[in-house]
């Protein structure tokens, strides 16, 4: 009992390190920095080079890490944050993700993909506490976390630069008018957060004696969860959130099992946010102040096409299998159509309704599993399952998301990320129904009335047909009073509610319809892959689908499909670049967002 509490505190200690950095950046830039974990990873590698290659002692190594990762933090700010500062937090979420992608892939090329040992030069001294032990490194990490938090506090509340940082965090425009150099403040914050991220990476690397290029991803996830638990932007909250998270995890391992660990972390997060939507430590504000007039973000100018172009492209896409005998491009496009369907469905949530969702893979997983189980256990034919499974998935999806729907903005975004993860963890743990980690194999190929569709051309046409149905339905909805209501919520939730739009109901409708088509995409993929497992549809997929709509244009079905085609075909078409292709992919993404932040195809109002 006490031992598990100690275990929770020790790991909470590590979570606190990342949570503090994430929460600090949120406080200043108003964005959850998804590149934080990558800076953390680079910091760990810098420390590793200093210790393992140059044989430096720990203190100069730490100084090098602080300097190096502060520089990386600055670079991230200049390349991926500052040019987009006015574009809004959705875009920033994506540019930081892209920056992280570039760093992770570059690290893999520079230092190799294998895990490296990072042995601690600290004294191996430890003392017993109950059945467990606390090592010198544990205390060192605790001191580093608390020490940095204190330094940060002193800086923010005792120095002039800190005053400027706080002013910028409160109101960027007002600070600018008061003569605060907000760019410098932003650089300063990212440099500090970068230095801190690098230090955390080094310390965590020392703790586990283990560093690798993708180590940032789980750190970001845990750090964000802890920061959210404590209340974004709140440093003591982040520390508290980290310990609460660590302790919850330790006890879920004790009572439920290690496979339930992350699931319980998500349950905790959602539970806390239901009762305290702004986190554990936060002043409860009854009402948000009314916005002052004139702060609209216009959606920019849409590309215009001749009216005949869209039908012409549709018809040629349909006729493509007649002319193209090579199955490879057909397969690529068939997958692009399925992803187009996911993008169109996500667009209803993120484009039309304006809610960022990072958990779309969860709906796809629901659809895939529903259909796999219905067809292989209950013998349902594919054609029927293609209809039934999406309904089932939509119902379950709305049920799961309902408690989270009252959260706003990035809180909702991160909670949906957790929900997407939770769905695949349920698939992993509910072995009686889902066969757990073994997944479901030998899923029948798609087919109608006993005729299986197995040729690439057949798959292509099936995917395209379902996509067309999806686009048509979403288009009809979007043109009806319902679309108007959803867009009104996106523009101003308070005003929308004052005119009779029940937020929970209409968000549920958006999530339900969206889940329906995401699940349909899952059904198509499950039957074409013939095998699905809990890790078939991952968080990376959710991000990719979100990228598609931001690239293509929010609230625009054609744009979503175009975004899907680009993002599926692009990595295929640059295969010859080998290890470098995902770096180019990240760079292209940032470039696109820089020059066309509202997507290639815009919402035409």
């Amino acid at each position, binding site marked *: 009992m006490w*031992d598990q509490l100690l275990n929770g505190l020790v790991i909470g200690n590590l979570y606190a390190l990342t949570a503090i950095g994430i929460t600090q950046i949120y406080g200043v830039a108003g964005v959850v920095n998804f590149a934080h974990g990558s800076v953390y990873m680079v910091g760990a590698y810098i420390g590793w080079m200093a210790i393992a290659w140059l044989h430096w002692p720990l203190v100069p190594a730490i100084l090098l890490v602080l300097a190096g990762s502060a520089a990386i933090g600055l670079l991230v700010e200049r390349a991926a944050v500052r040019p987009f500062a006015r574009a809004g937090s959705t875009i920033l979420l994506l540019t930081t993700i892209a920056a992280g992608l570039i760093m992770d892939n570059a690290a893999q090329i520079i230092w190799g993909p294998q895990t490296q040992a990072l042995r601690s030069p600290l004294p191996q001294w430890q003392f017993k506490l109950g*059945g467990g032990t606390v090592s010198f490194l544990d205390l060192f990490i605790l001191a580093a976390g608390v020490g940095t938090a204190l330094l940060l506090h002193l800086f923010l509340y005792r120095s002039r630069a800190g005053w400027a940082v706080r002013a910028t965090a409160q109101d960027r425009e007002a600070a600018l008018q008061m003569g605060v150099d907000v760019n410098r403040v932003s650089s300063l914050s990212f440099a500090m957060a970068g230095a801190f991220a690098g230090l955390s990476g080094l310390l965590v690397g020392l703790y586990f004696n283990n560093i690798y290029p993708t180590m940032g991803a789980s750190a970001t996830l845990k750090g964000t969860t802890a920061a959210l638990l404590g209340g974004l932007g709140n440093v003591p909250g982040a520390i508290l959130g980290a310990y609460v998270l660590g302790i919850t995890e330790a006890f879920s391992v004790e009572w439920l099992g290690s496979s339930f660990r992350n699931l319980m972390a998500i349950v905790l997060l959602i539970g806390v946010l239901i009762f305290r939507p702004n986190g554990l430590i936060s002043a409860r504000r009854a009402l948000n102040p009314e916005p002052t007039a004139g702060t609209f973000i216009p959606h920019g100018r849409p590309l215009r096409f001749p009216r005949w172009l869209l039908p012409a492209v549709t018809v040629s896409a349909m006729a493509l299998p007649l002319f193209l005998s090579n199955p490879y491009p057909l397969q690529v496009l068939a997958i692009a159509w399925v992803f187009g369907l996911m993008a169109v469905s996500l667009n209803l949530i993120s484009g039309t309704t304006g809610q960022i969702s990072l958990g779309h893979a969860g709906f796809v997983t629901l659809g895939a599993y529903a259909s796999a189980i219905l067809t292989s256990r209950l013998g349902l034919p594919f054609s029927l399952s293609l209809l039934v499974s999406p309904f089932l998935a939509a119902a379950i999806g709305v049920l799961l998301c309902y408690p989270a729907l009252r959260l706003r903005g990035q809180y909702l975004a991160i909670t949906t990320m957790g929900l997407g993860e939770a769905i695949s963890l349920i698939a992993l743990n509910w072995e009686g129904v889902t066969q757990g*980690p073994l997944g479901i194999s030998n899923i029948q190929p798609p087919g109608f009335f006993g005729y299986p569709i197995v040729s690439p051309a057949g798959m292509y046409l099936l995917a395209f047909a379902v996509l067309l149905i999806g686009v048509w339905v979403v288009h009809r909805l979007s043109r009806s009073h319902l679309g108007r209501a959803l867009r009104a919520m996106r523009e101003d939730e308070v005003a929308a509610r004052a005119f009779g739009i029940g937020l929970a109901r209409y968000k549920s409708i958006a999530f339900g319809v969206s889940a329906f088509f995401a699940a349909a995409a899952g059904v198509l993929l499950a039957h074409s892959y013939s095998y699905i497992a809990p890790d078939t549809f991952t968080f990376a997929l959710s991000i990719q689908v979100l990228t598609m709509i931001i690239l293509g244009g929010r609230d625009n079905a054609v744009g979503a499909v175009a975004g899907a085609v680009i993002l599926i075909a692009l990595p295929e078409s640059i295969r010859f670049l080998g290890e470098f292709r995902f770096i180019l992919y990240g760079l292209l993404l940032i470039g696109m967002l820089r020059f066309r932040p509202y997507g290639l195809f815009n919402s035409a109002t």
Partner: protein
Amino acid sequence: MSARVRFFSRIRSVSLASVVFTLLLTSCGISGTSTTPSDSAAQEAKSPVVIGVSGPLTGDNAEYGKQWRKGIDLALKEINANGGVKGRKLEYVFEDTQSDPKQTPAVAQKFVADSKIAAVIGDFSSPASMAASPIYQRAGLVQLGITNSHPDFTNTGDYIWSNTSNQKDDAPYLAALAVQKLNKKRLAVLYLNTDWGKTTTELFVGKAKELGAEVVVQEGYLSNEKDFRPILTKARDANPDALILISYYNDGALIAQQRDAVGLDTTVVAIGSVYSPQFIKLGGEAVEGVYTATRFYPGDPRPEVQRFVQAYQKEHNEDPDSFSAVAYDGVRILAQVMEQYGTDRKAIRDGLGSIKDLDTVLYGKASFGPDRRLQNPRFLPLVVQNGRFELWNP
């Protein structure tokens, strides 16, 4: 924004878009150059035989793909130095899939459409590999899974083969090692909760119970887990006399290290997947005295193993691990089949079924069984001593 800036940003966005679309067109156009089967035989005789490899070179599993590549490179170098296959040079095309099930079907279609590809090796993870299997099966192109232990992997059809055991031999061997040779009766089993870990654990536990041992803890952990103190505390409280790890070397080393922090000092017996220089590098002193049993061990006195290890060290300046060894074997199995039965896709499939006494590093002389997997693997019990894996002879 001034009109001028806007103008330029539009120009730039248009050119950016055109770059993208050009790339798209390239992907559809150039890649469509599949050679037709009517290529003249004379041309074919000169052209190389190509093996397609579908595997991770970027992303989370990139390190395994890189290990594969080292094994494949060595195998090809040796084969081509000996005159290649049927007088033709043997080559490979490695397509990076990140072990992502969304990319493997596309790569599969690419290989299928490319008539130069004689057979395919890969992919790494089960979801990625099995999403592509139906395509290989329908098109009649052999997919040789080199790390695919999922019990259903080869069930997709008669073109799907594997030179990896589905654990039905490894796990019982390990159980016998722990229960009979080490005389352990209270086992705490920690396993990686994936298709591989789950299957192995069930086979292990079945055999261990049959041999009279008690399994006091059986806990799966998630594949991205780093913090094992809670699960080890739970294991410790069950008072086991051996800790069984069904782990890969990265997580295996982490568990071994963190054991100390909760005061669990029982014997550790780990499945053969921990066998890697990395396990010792990452685990340090904490992995001293860990027992394992592996199909591949560089210190194995068998001549075929010694020859492979020496060649590998010469080529790459390091010891091979089991990932490079399976890849090495995979290529050599295909080469032997092609030499004997021809490079036609169907001939390769038939050849895999009929060939006897394949020359392999991992299995010695081996043949495929009715489940399209290699039969009768051999195991060597090892123990970590003084920072090295040593043969253990009780």
